[in-house]
């Protein structure tokens, strides 16, 4: 057992850290700044069946210790992603497990994209995005309805050649109900949280700052909400959880694992500092030593012993 390594279905992670979907493109730009083989894995930008321009601009607005985004799942479509983006990333960083983020507006789209992308060389797992708040149809509609979430997950699990992690929305009354329903479809695990729906207005124009009106809140401001939701999902199921939401440092990573996560994704912090992930990986061993944590796996093990169902 290495100090930082974590084993999850389909994912042999040398450390628990990975950039979150939408905050690292398809790895091309970050890959020019540092060696991505250092990362535990990478969660690439959402793929949909057809190319999408996404929402009109402005697409981002700042909030205290956070930001709103309404990108609207801009991507070049699954065909281009499978033919160009993934091969390029895989050829340059052979040791980097790729987690493909899949989105859509109808169940058939999700299924077709999962089928195609799960067979791309280098793709180790799928993150099923049933929680995007920034599209008119699909996305979060699936993630807030237990029956629809179950059906969709089941259909995707059936066609996928790699393990599926379902990305849960925080914009629900009780995340445990959704998690329990999705778990019945036997995915490999969960990822959470996606962004929280929010708004900001401009005092001069009296209009919403985002062209889409609403956007998803992320960044340090959401950390406590993410921790609580991860803890809630952990209390009702044993499936692996990749935690995310507001993580900026090694201490936050350990806190996520204590709350119930088995690995941790870093989103907005990459936008503030593109070197955030390698910096956190470098900082982890010393912070672990400070808190007498011999390895990430041991911390997960310790948590399992303590958690009361």
């Amino acid at each position, binding site marked *: 057992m290495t100090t930082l390594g974590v084993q999850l279905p389909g994912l042999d992670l040398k450390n628990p850290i990975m950039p979150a979907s939408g905050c690292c493109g398809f790895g091309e730009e970050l890959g020019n700044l540092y060696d991505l083989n250092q990362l535990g894995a990478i969660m690439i930008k959402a793929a949909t069946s057809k190319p999408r321009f996404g929402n009109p601009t402005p697409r981002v607005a700042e909030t205290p210790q956070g930001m709103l985004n309404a990108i609207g799942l801009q991507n070049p479509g699954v065909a281009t992603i499978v033919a160009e983006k993934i091969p390029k990333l895989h050829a340059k960083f052979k040791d980097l497990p790729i987690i493909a983020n899949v989105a859509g507006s109808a169940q058939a789209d999700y299924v077709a994209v999962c089928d195609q992308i799960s067979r791309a060389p280098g793709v180790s797992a799928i993150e099923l995005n049933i929680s995007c708040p920034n599209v008119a149809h699909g996305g979060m509609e699936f993630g807030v309805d237990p029956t629809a979430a179950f059906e969709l997950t089941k259909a995707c699990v059936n066609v996928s050649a790699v393990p599926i992690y379902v990305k849960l929305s925080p914009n629900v009354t009780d995340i445990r109900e959704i998690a329990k329903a999705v778990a019945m479809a036997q995915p490999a695990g969960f990822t959470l949280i996606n962004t929280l729906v929010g708004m900001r207005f401009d005092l001069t124009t009296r209009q919403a700052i985002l062209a889409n009106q609403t956007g998803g809140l992320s960044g340090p401001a959401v950390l406590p909400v993410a921790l609580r939701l991860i803890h809630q999902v952990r209390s009702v199921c044993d499936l692996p959880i990749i935690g995310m939401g507001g993580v900026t440092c090694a201490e936050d990573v350990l806190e996520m694992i204590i709350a119930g996560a088995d690995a941790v994704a870093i989103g907005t912090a990459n936008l503030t*500092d593109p070197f955030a992930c390698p910096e956190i990986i470098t900082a982890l061993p010393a912070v672990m030593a400070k808190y007498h944590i011999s390895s990430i796996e041991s911390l997960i093990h310790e948590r399992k012993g303590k958690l009361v169902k």
Partner: protein
Amino acid sequence: MIKDYTLTVTNQIEVADTIYELTLAGAITKDPIAAGQFVNVKIPNPAYILRRPFGIAEVNVAQGYIKLIYRVVGDGTQILAQLSKGATLNVLGPLGHGFPSEFLNQNADVLIIGGGTGLPPLYELSRRLYHEGHHLDIALGFPNKQRIFYEAKMSQFGHTMVSTDDGSYGLQGTIIDLIDQNFTDKSYQAIYACGPRGLELAVSAHFKGHPHAYISAEARMACGIGICNACVLHTTADTSGATNKKVCTDGPVFHINEVVL
């Protein structure tokens, strides 16, 4: 090479009402910087997680500093304006693509069009083009007399004329009026413009079809390095489809026919 540099404030002066010139020293000048590239500046207060983009106004390789010129418009720029000598800033850069000029003939005639805080990257461009021996005509527009900066500095590089929206200095009118009245007798090999969206739209319409007319676009950004898709524009070749250009990595400089502003 893009790096997150720690730069030291060596000077900060108010060059016009609410407009500051910030001198930052450090290793960023050790690698090449093109005129028209920008930096993404971390606001030195943890409450602000998005960096602020600013054009690089001057590069001094010998003395190891860059200058930024910015107007105080909100919280981030207000915080920057309070920095004094010795303070440090995290500056990501150099970012984006600069103004293309390799195609220019010797001693080419060039028109520079700057509006307000669009002027900074054009200062460095003008400085370089002048030293390469090109002939510059320079049209500058400002809202009013109080907000004028760098008129004298730009005049070193070529024939410089100023307009103001309210007529408190120079010609009263838009920058297109200024061009129509003063800069019509030459056919310029290249036109370089940077300013508010209205100015860039007007310049794009005025010089439609010109093979070497370039604008530097602005956009709400987050990462500044192409990973978040905040800053996209439609292209003129596909005005409503999924094709797009990112201002931060494909720009900020574009040919006027390339993108939908």
